[in-house]
């Protein structure tokens, strides 16, 4: 009889898998399949591609699960693997991907956290952002998705993308600046 782990945290389930109970891995897949699928869909359009990438992500998670430190947040680690897999997939398809070197990452930036109002209007913002995503470069698109759609904070986004925390804030700010004229042209009123 299998132990009921539905109430357990991700990290506790990972601990069980690490100690040999691999049968609980499907609980993690079920918890994150839809979320990671939604994240992948912001970069890829072909359903078959998305399915392949999802499979590869969960296979990599399983293979490398012993490297996960259960004191840290599992979702950030999972998104890090998903980020790498998506970047590799986009590279293979020779689509534009993250630049190898960016001045944003090199120089210190003034960190500006988003205010509470923005959080309160999350649904509105998600709709707004969704309309412009295709027109944004990946380096701006990804932090925006992770912040508004996946509900991550700057530190978590920094861990996923392995960039400085201040750069995350700057990229989100720039993404919003880029979106403004696009939204105007779409006659969408957002301020």
């Amino acid at each position, binding site marked *: 009889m299998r132990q009921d782990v539905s109430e357990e945290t991700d990290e506790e389930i990972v601990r069980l898998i690490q100690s040999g109970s691999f049968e609980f891995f499907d609980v993690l*897949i079920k918890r994150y399949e839809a979320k990671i699928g939604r994240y992948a869909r912001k970069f890829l359009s072909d359903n078959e591609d998305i399915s392949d990438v999802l499979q590869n992500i969960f*296979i990599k998670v399983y293979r490398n699960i*012993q490297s996960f430190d259960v004191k840290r947040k599992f979702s950030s680690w999972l998104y890090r693997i998903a980020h790498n897999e998506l970047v590799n997939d986009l590279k293979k398809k020779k689509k534009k991907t993250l630049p190898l070197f960016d001045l944003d990452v090199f120089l210190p930036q003034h960190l500006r956290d988003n205010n509470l109002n923005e959080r309160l209007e999350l649904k509105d913002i998600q709709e707004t952002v969704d309309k412009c995503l295709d027109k944004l470069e990946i380096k701006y698109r990804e932090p925006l998705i992770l912040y508004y759609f996946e509900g991550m904070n700057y*530190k978590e986004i*920094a861990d996923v993308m392995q960039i400085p925390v201040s750069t995350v804030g700057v990229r989100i700010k720039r993404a919003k600046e880029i979106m403004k004229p696009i939204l105007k042209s779409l006659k969408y009123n957002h301020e």
Partner: protein
Amino acid sequence: MNNQQNSINNKVINKIKSGNIKMKPKIYFVLRTALLMLSILVLVLFIVCLISFIAFSLRSSGVWLSPAFGFPCIKMLFGSLPWVLILITVVLIVLLEIFAKKFTFVYRKPILYSLLIIILVVFLGGFLIDKTPFHSNLFWKAQEGHLPGFGSFYRDFGNPKFKNIHQGVVSEVINNGFLIENHRERIISVMITPETRLPSEKIEEGDVIVVFGERDNGQIEALNIRKTKRDFNFFPKNRFPKKGFID
């Protein structure tokens, strides 16, 4: 969508059950992290040695003091820097930054910060090593032929020879000049002319001097002479090889 999700779940779980996908053991990751840390340590030590060696080679040739002789010598210093070693150092510092960025506390901060810390650490380390007799001992071992492997490296880079800058210990004060001893040629005669700019202090036997002037047939017509500190480890007493000087 649900079907797609179920199929992904089933595919992955089936692959796990069939043994097609294997979990990497914890020891693999422990060893990988240990290897990364060891590589960082080795790189830091290597860069520190390289920086201190560059400083040593500049001091050993006297080029380090060339800016004191005015603008033409600054230009000469620039031209005589060991650019190959400097380029290797820069490449290794970049490599060190790439390795260090694997750690959370490094990548969360702008590259400029981690790069500045790395540069500060390796230069400080290089400066401290340069204050020890480490390189001069190895240099002398290389000169005496007792340094297998690195001997030619020390002989080639450790004491570069320049046309206009010469450093040595005054072995004898002669009429209108001095004889100086250096690592390579042992004795060079330095001629003083009315145009020679001399230091304010008197030059005596045993002083270490740097001479700016073109050398011709073992003789330098000095344009400018500077006294420098006797480097306890670079010109140790009785360390000039008596026989079989290797050049």
